[in-house]
C-alpha cells in the first residue's frame, strides 16, 4: 500500500467532528449558516476518510470560504463592501491573516463556479468524486468477500457464476462471491497507484523541463534526446517486455515505472513554454523592475503553465491506470485481489468471457475502469477553464 490509507476509520470520524467545529464556529460568528453547515460536513467527511491528512487541509479551505463570505476588505472600498470612511491601510497581524484567508476563500469559490461552467467537465468531476467516495466510504457498508461461497450454488447450475439479482446487484463471480463487494474494495489501490504515478511523472517533467529550458546547453540536449527516445519506443510492448524481465508485484515500483515512462511529453511542453516565456516582454519587464525571482515565477511564469501542467497530470494519471490495468489483464503483474483489473484477468482465466451468466461479473469492472477514465478526460475540460488566466480574469 502506498502512502496513507484512505479507508474510512472511526478515529478519522472523531477527528473530522472535532476539526469541523472550526469553520462552524467561524460561520456562527459571522452568521453564515449555510456555508458553516456545508463546511462542517466537508470537514467531517474528509477527516473520516483520511484522518488528519485529509482533515486539516479541508478545515483551512472550509474556514477560508466561510470567511470570504463575510469579510470586508478595508483596503479596497471599490469591490468589497467597505464604506469609504472605513478605509484603513494599517492592519494588525490578525487582519492580515483574515485578508489572506478571505482571498483564498474567494479563489476557491471562483474555482467552484468555473468548475460548473463547463457541463462536460463538471460531469467528469462528479464522476471522479463518485468513484473516490465509493472507494473510501463503500467499505464501511459493504463487507469484502474473499472466501469462496459454495453454498450459493443454484440447483442445476454448472458454475457459481450468477447474473444480477435483488440480493447481489452485480451478480456473483466464479467462486460465488459478491461482485459488488469487489467493485467497492477494488478501486482504491488502482486509483492511488495511478495518482501517485501521475504526480511523480508531473514532478519529473516540471523539474527536467524547467532545467532544460533555463539551463540549455548539454543538460537540454541530454534530456531532450532522452525524452525523444522514450516517446518513440512503443509503450505497450516495452511494458510487457519489462514485466517479463522484472518481477513487478509492488504498487510503488509500478507507479515509479509508469512515471518514468510518462514524463517526456509534458517535459517537452514545459521546456518549450519556458523557452518562449523567457522572451516575453512582461517577463523581461518584471526582471527589469527587479520584482524578485519568487514573484516572477509565481506571478508571471507559473500561471501561464499551470493549466497545461494540470491537464497533463490528469492525462498521466489516466495513462498510468491504462497501463496498470493492461498489465493486470494480460496476467503479467501478480497483483492481489480485490482489484478491478484482477477481476477481469481472473474472470477471463475462469472462462467468464464465454459464459452468459458471468457477463455481469466482467462488465462491472470494465464499466468502472471505462467510466473512471472517461471522467478523467472530461474533467480536463473544466481544468482548462479553471486555470486559464484569460478566462479567470473575466470574473
Amino acid at each position, binding site marked *: 500500500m502506498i502512502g496513507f490509507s484512505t479507508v474510512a476509520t472511526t478515529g478519522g470520524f472523531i477527528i473530522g467532528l472535532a476539526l469541523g467545529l472550526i469553520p462552524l464556529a467561524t460561520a456562527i460568528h459571522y452568521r453564515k449558516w449555510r456555508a458553516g453547515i456545508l463546511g462542517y460536513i466537508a470537514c467531517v467527511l474528509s477527516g473520516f476518510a483520511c484522518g488528519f491528512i485529509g482533515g486539516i487541509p479541508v478545515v483551512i479551505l472550509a474556514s477560508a470560504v466561510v470567511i470570504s463570505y463575510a469579510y470586508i476588505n478595508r483596503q479596497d472600498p471599490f469591490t468589497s463592501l467597505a464604506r469609504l470612511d472605513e478605509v484603513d491601510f494599517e492592519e494588525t497581524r490578525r487582519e492580515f491573516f483574515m485578508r489572506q484567508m478571505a482571498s483564498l476563500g474567494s479563489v476557491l469559490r471562483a474555482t467552484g463556479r468555473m468548475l460548473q461552467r463547463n457541463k462536460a467537465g463538471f460531469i467528469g468531476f462528479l464522476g471522479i468524486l463518485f468513484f473516490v467516495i465509493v472507494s473510501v466510504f463503500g467499505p464501511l457498508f459493504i463487507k469484502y468477500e474473499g472466501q469462496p461461497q459454495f453454498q450459493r450454488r443454484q440447483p442445476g447450475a454448472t458454475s457459481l457464476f450468477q447474473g444480477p439479482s435483488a440480493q447481489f446487484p452485480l451478480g456473483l463471480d466464479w467462486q460465488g462471491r459478491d461482485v459488488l463487494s469487489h467493485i467497492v474494495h477494488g478501486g482504491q489501490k488502482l486509483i492511488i497507484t495511478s495518482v501517485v504515478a501521475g504526480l511523480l511523472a508531473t514532478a519529473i517533467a516540471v523539474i527536467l523541463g524547467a532545467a532544460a529550458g533555463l539551463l540549455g546547453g548539454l543538460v537540454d540536449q541530454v534530456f531532450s534526446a532522452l525524452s*525523444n527516445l522514450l516517446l518513440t519506443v512503443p509503450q505497450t510492448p516495452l511494458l510487457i517486455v519489462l*514485466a517479463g524481465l522484472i518481477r513487478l508485484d509492488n504498487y510503488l515500483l509500478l507507479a515509479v515505472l509508469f512515471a518514468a515512462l510518462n514524463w517526456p511529453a509534458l517535459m517537452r511542453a514545459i521546456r518549450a513554454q519556458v523557452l518562449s516565456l523567457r522572451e516575453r516582454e512582461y517577463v523581461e519587464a518584471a526582471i527589469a523592475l527587479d520584482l524578485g525571482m519568487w514573484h516572477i515565477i509565481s506571478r508571471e511564469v507559473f500561471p501561464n503553465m499551470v493549466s497545461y501542467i494540470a491537464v497533463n497530470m490528469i492525462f498521466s494519471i489516466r495513462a498510468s491506470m491504462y497501463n496498470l490495468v*493492461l498489465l493486470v489483464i*494480460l*496476467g503479467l503483474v501478480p497483483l492481489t485481489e480485490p482489484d478491478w483489473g484482477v477481476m477481469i484477468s481472473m474472470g477471463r482465466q475462469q472462462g467468464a*468471457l464465454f459464459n452468459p451468466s458471468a457477463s455481469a461479473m466482467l462488465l462491472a469492472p470494465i464499466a468502472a475502469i471505462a467510466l473512471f477514465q472517461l471522467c478523467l478526460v472530461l474533467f480536463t475540460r473544466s481544468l482548462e477553464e479553471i486555470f486559464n488566466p484569460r478566462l479567470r480574469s473575466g470574473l
Partner: protein
Amino acid sequence: MASTAQPERVDVRTGQPVAPHVLRKWLRKFSKSYTGRVVVQGLFTIWAVTTITFFLIRLMPGNPLDIKIDQLQRTQGLSYQEARARAAGLFGFDPDQPIFEQYVVYVGRLIQGDLGQSITSGGISVSSEILQFLPWTLFSVGLGLLVSFGLGILIGLAMAYWRGGILDNVMTVVSSILYGIPDYIIPLLLIIVVGIQWGLFSPGEMRGGIDPTLTPGFTPEYIGSLFKFALLPVTTYVLASIGGWVLTMKSSTISTLGEDYINVAKARGLSERRILIGYVGRNAMLPLVTRLAISIGFVVGGSVIVEELFQYPGIGRNLLRAINARDYTTMQGMFLVITIAVILSNVGADLLFGLLDPRVRLGGEGDDT
C-alpha cells in the same frame, strides 16, 4: 534529394568555407537538412533500443541466460559446462567472451537480419517466426486504420460543415466517449455484449486468423475467410481510433473554413462541392495524414491485447506468448521489430510532413505559424 535542399543555409550557419571532400560536404549538408535530422534521429533511436535490450537481457540479476542454464541442469541432468554451452548456442552468443565483444557480434548479426534461434520452439529462427506473424498484424492493423481514417475524415468534415446539426451533436458525444475509454475495453465489450449477450456472432468460432480447414490460395472462400476472421480485430481498431480522427478533423476543418482563401474561393463563385473537397478537405487533412503514419506504429504496438483476446495470430499475441514462455530470443526479436516499425513510421510521418508542408522543411524560420 536532401542534399540539394538548402545548400546556401549550411554555409551561412557554419560560416566555414566549403569542405574540399565531396563526401564530407554531402554528409554535413545531410545532417543539417530536415531529412537528415529525421533520419539520424531514427537511426539513433533504433541503436539505443537495440543496445538497451541487449544489456537488459544479459546484465539483469537473474538474467535469462542463468535461468536457462539452471533449467537445463535441472531438467536434463546436464553438467554446468554442458548446460552453459547449450544455452549459449540457443541465445546465439559465447558467454566466455567479454561483454563488449558479445555486443559487437550481436550487432553484426542483427545487421544481417539474424535474430537467433527461438528457445521454446527448437530449430526455428526468430526471423522466420516474425515473418510468419507480422503479415497478420499488418493486414488487420492496416485495414482497421484505413477504414477508421476514411470514415473519420468524412464524418469530421460533415460535422464541421453542418456545425450544430444533429450529426455534429451526436458524433461529438460518441467520439468523445470512444476517445476517452481505454482501447482494450472495446474487444471485451464486443465479445461479452455483442457476441455472448446479443448472440450476433459466436466468439469461440471467431478465434484464430483463418478457417484451418481451408487450403491457402486465391480462392474466394480463402479470402472471404481471411476478412471474416479479421472482422473483429479490425472493428476494434476502427472503434478505438475513430474518435481521435473525427475530433481532429472537425477542429482542423473549422479552422480551415475561416481561412481567407476559402472566402476568396466563395467570392470567385466556385461550387460548394468543389470548395469542400478541393479547398477545405485537402488542407484540413494535412495534420491528419502525418498522424496516420504515427498511429500505424502505435496500433502495431497496441495490438498485443486485441490479438490476445481474439486469439488472432499476429505478432502482438506471439510477443505475449514468448514472454509467458520465457522465450527471450523471440521476445527480444519481436520487440525490436515492433520498435523499428514504430520508429520507421515516425520517420515516415516526419518526412511526409516535410513533403506536404514546405514550412516545416525550411526549419526554424516558420515559428510564428
